[in-house]
């Protein structure tokens, strides 16, 4: 168990620091309340008008396209690390994988997923 002492100290410090910061700020901070402070937090501004509004959800397409590259990277890293042992087969395999992702990306591009309108 001796070799885990470092981790234990690290864990305790990591836990203690934010807790002491929170407690410290709670003790030190001046407490002046105003009605605005009890409002629902919304980016620091007062709420204006109806909260049930329609807004564009175009960003979800960006999220999907981002996912394409995200998944690609997740696979590319372990592949790159063991690339030499895996040989030609893995090389071809990775290219097929990237080709599939690129077809998906080109499709999204062509269909206008990257345009904000």
């Amino acid at each position, binding site marked *: 168990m001796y070799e885990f002492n470092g981790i234990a100290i690290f864990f305790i410090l990591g836990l203690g620091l934010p807790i002491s910061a929170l407690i410290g700020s709670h003790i030190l901070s001046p407490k002046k309340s105003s009605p605005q402070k009890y409002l629902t937090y919304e980016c620091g501004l007062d709420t204006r008008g109806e909260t049930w509004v329609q807004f564009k959800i175009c960003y979800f397409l960006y999220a999907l396209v981002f996912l394409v590259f995200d998944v690609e990277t997740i696979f590319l890293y372990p592949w790159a690390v063991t690339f030499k042992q895996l040989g030609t087969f893995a090389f071809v395999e990775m290219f097929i994988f990237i080709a*599939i992702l690129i*077809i998906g990306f*080109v*499709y999204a591009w*062509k269909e206008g997923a990257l345009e904000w309108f």
Partner: protein
Amino acid sequence: MNLALIMPELMVTGLAFIVLAIALLIPRNQQKNLGYITLVGLLGVLINTFIYSDGDQQLFNNMFIVDSYAVFFKVLFIIASILVVLAAIRYVERISERQGEFYVLVLFATLGMMILASAGDLITFYLGLELMTIACYILTAYHRGNKKSSEAGIKYLILGALSSAILLYGLSIIYGLTGTTTMIIIAKTVNQIGMNPVFLVANIFILCGLAFKISAVPFHMWAPDVYEGAPTPIAAFLAVASKTAGFAVLIRFFLYLMPEVSASWITLLGIIAGLTMVLGNLVAIPQTNIKRLLAYSGIAHAGYLLLGVLAFSKDGVMAVLFYLAIYLFANIGAFMTAGCFVNSTGSNQIKDYAGLSRRSPFLAIAMLLSLLSLAGIPPLAGFVGKFYLFTSIIAKEHYLLAFIAVIMNTVSVYYYLQVVRMMYFKEAESNEKIIISNPVKLVLTLTMTATLFLGIYPGPVTSIANQVAINFF
């Protein structure tokens, strides 16, 4: 590792990407040729599936099983998607300016089903299931701008996600109990530990998820609404291929994995089968919309098919396999007739089928043969299929279920014949001829031939099904 074993799957994937790439390159108004490209590709895959059909082999550490059982189902899925694509060519042209995606999604759904039939691991199983279902959600809502289609898509999505969640929970419990996701190892562990309450819960959850896919009562509510709203070829695809896929995995999962604990799920399946037959057939009677009628008839058929599963014997599995094959032709025939009718008249109401025998004798005879086969009238394939199903259950002395099945089958003849009565003995309101496009004509000819042929001479398919069932036990 022998990649030749997953050749059909690789080919379908490749075909899907080729179709997608071509759809990007050619202008929108020339895209109907994509349907023919898809068809040719699928025919190639079908031939390939036949060629590599020998022996039981495993791939990727038992994650993927290629045995005669999987191959049988794959052939069914590919035939179903060929018929659906062929019938959909004109339909898609009419409902949407985007045609490429339609074929790509049908191909991905087929791929999902093929993976499902070969799944030897819980992860492959779930992956195949989701690939199939997600493609089907989009296809259901493919008729953009049509409220019914969008409604059907949303309903299917929400209920499908719920059922997937339940199924996944069941799978995770099994993983928790056995510590593995490979089905063979799970089977060994399960037979050692025997019945366990937690395990029973997992079984029920998985059964719920699969009962949704095969639209068995009480998880059937989505079927009529979704079939009604979905484009007709897709309704046929859901009613046939998606249901067959559900049965493929249901049989593999329960018969292969749980033989030692069969008592626990046979009772459960018996209750579900009885309810499904009674409700499906009784609710079908008052339907006025042909697609809803076919949906309830499909629910009833899930009940009949479950009988073969819970017979838990070689004959039972054989009966289910044979029935799924003939159900494919009869149901696609009926749905495509309805699709052709709605294409030229814009109506799905049964009362508008009045005088169809004079307006289009060909459509009327196609509908007649499909419905009579579904009802199980002797010279047609449905009779042979039901005969095998009911004998398999009687051989296992489940007399009550056999009794319900026979009574309910008699009830079903009534509502099928109502449609026939409309078509043949009522005067038409208009005498306008109904135009049938050539691809649809071909599909209907194929389904009629298969329905008649398998009714008179079921030998070839029964012997294949028998061979598959023997290997399975």
